[in-house]
């Protein structure tokens, strides 16, 4: 039963999370997103859709992903903490999914919707290429042609993922407008969509964009939190004290958080990319360094100047390098249900290397931000407290960036 005052009952019928979210799109797209919403409602009450989604998550993605007691990290942080401090840390291992990150969960759900709607062509935007690879993967699996929009700057610095997408049969279209990164790729995907409304489905990669995208992406990603909740109850016999996840657009975080929102004793920490620092203009922390505005179909916190011009984001992690954030996070921030903090490039790099050394896991740079968040918090938490950290992806894709940052030539 959904209680009237449940925090899990958002958005409202018009797609608003409090004052955030909504459907700020060109009129040409409005009928499409209304169609998408109708089809999503039908899918939600269709047992066959649920069965197909869950079947693919199990057999194709490899779910459930393990909840792993990160004993190495737990011990390492206790060593540096005062006596009796340093919580027990679990990793939700989204890095073990097919394609190496949580992104695939959402792509499976959306391509099933595309097929239900009779769409013949898939488009998507990508920054680092992870969502592009996940989209190209499901498009290949279901035999639909696929075009991925990627900023020309990102194409140049993410060649391995560009090649992966091409191997999977996708067309990668470099975007040369604006700063030629994720934001511009999203603009160009919207331009393509508006010109191909009849046959094209846009698989948005994060829990943002016009309603119903933030809701449906969250729902598809909520498998993370739903599994984690069962797994921690089995492992510890109780709910965790704290959840930690990195937030760019925020899909891995909302996927972990949402099933726990009504558990009042579970605290939540979202980690934004603070880049060179929140006191510089080189960061990607929309909540802690931005203010509300409207971009890409939704009202949410954005990096912008006083005239409402969008400013460029910066993070060492390409997956967090976006000047906005999903609208549900903006709402959770305003109602103070979730705490959001920034972690700098340097802190993330340190956490990345720590995780490699003490856990034998190379985390994605996005996930390294979450790890840096718990590194900072650990000394204030008691030994008997339990933390679940979303290890949202693996770091193979990031080794070139990391090497570069460490001054190592590969």
């Amino acid at each position: 039963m959904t209680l009237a005052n449940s925090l899990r009952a958002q958005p409202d019928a018009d797609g608003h999370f409090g004052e955030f979210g909504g459907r700020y799109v060109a009129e040409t797209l409005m009928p499409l997103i209304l169609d998408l919403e109708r089809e999503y409602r039908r899918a939600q009450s269709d047992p066959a859709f649920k069965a197909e989604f869950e079947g693919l998550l199990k057999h194709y993605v490899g779910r459930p992903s393990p909840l792993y007691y990160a004993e190495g990290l737990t011990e390492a942080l206790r060593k540096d903490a005062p006596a009796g401090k340093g919580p027990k840390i679990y990793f939700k291992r989204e890095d073990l999914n097919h394609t190496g990150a949580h992104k695939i969960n959402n792509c499976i759900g959306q391509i099933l919707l595309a097929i239900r709607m009779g769409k013949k062509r898939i488009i998507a935007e990508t920054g680092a290429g992870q969502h592009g690879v996940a989209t190209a993967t499901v498009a290949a699996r279901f035999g639909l042609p696929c075009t991925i929009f990627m900023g020309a700057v990102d194409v140049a610095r993410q060649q391995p993922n560009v090649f992966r997408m091409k191997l999977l049969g996708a067309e990668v279209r470099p975007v040369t407008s604006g700063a030629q990164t994720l934001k511009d790729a999203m603009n160009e995907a919207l331009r393509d969509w508006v010109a191909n409304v009849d046959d094209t489905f846009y698989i948005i990669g994060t829990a943002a964009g016009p309603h119903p995208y933030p809701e449906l992406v969250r729902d598809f990603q909520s498998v993370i939190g739903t599994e984690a909740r069962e797994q921690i109850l089995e492992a510890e016999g109780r709910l965790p004290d704290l959840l930690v996840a990195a937030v760019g657009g925020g899909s891995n975080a909302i996927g972990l958080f949402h099933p726990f929102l009504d558990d009042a004793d579970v605290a939540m920490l979202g980690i934004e990319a603070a880049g060179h620092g929140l006191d510089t203009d080189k960061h990607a922390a929309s909540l802690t360094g931005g203010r509300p505005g409207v971009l890409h179909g939704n009202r949410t916190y954005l990096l912008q100047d006083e005239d409402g011009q969008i400013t460029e984001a910066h993070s060492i992690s390409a997956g967090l390098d976006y000047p906005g954030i999903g609208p549900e996070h903006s709402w959770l921030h305003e109602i103070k249900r979730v705490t959001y903090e920034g972690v700098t490039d340097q802190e993330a790099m340190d956490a990345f290397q720590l995780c490699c050394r003490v856990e034998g896991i190379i985390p994605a740079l996005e996930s390294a931000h979450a790890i840096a968040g718990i590194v900072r918090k650990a000394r204030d938490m008691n030994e008997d407290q339990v933390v679940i950290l979303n290890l949202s992806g693996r770091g193979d894709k990031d080794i070139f960036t990391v090497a570069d940052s460490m001054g190592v030539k590969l």
Partner: protein
Amino acid sequence: MSRLADTFARLKAEDRAALVAFVTAGDPSPAHTPAILDAIVAGGADVIELGMPFTDPMADGPAIQEANIRALAAGTKTADVLAIAKGFRERHPNVPLVLMGYANPMLSRGADWFAQALEEAGIDGVICVDIPAEEDAALGPPLRAKGIDLVRLATPTTDTARLPAVLEGASGFLYYVSVAGITGLQQAATDTIEAAVARLKAGTDLPVAVGFGVRTPEQAAAIARVADGVVVGSAIVDALAKAGGNPEAGRALVAILAGAVREARVGVTA
């Protein structure tokens, strides 16, 4: 009556369509825009659509994207756009001026602030690309309270069932986007446009202006025969860009377009 309603009524009485001419404010610099606006009025534009630059113009094709980039690179601020409008209003008391742009710059200081600023600048109407009828509450009420027209967009995907929702709260004119796509690239066939305009006119008494992809005098004339207004944007922006912002380039093109629009119905029985 508003300046927009006035103008469309007068032109209807003259049995001709309005030429709605678009330029991006601040392109290539805020100092260029007043003379460019004067030139396109001199060329025969009936209504001015002044583009408010935005970093992320996701409904625009290359021509207007680049104009936005040039304007912002030249340091164009919201204050400059408002000052350009205010100066225009002083020089041209009767020519309607509509501001076109995106939600974020319009809402940045709050919708009430924006409506007040528009009133002070003498701006007649607003076209906001990414505030559809469903999000009217974000901007519509303060504009209506100030008597500023909110021009809505209808598109090939706006079906008859949806049209009443689009029309609710619309005023000034209805802007028909003739192709599902971005600005400046292609134009729909004339008979398709004629059928669409007839469908829209069955649902509203508002004048219907047609835009997106109108580049040549022939295209403008064809639309002027079936609609109340013809919007030309990218072609003017391109012509100005090629001439480095020389107002004469705008005047010359607008004069040709205006001639075509004025002659379109001559000798044609309605």
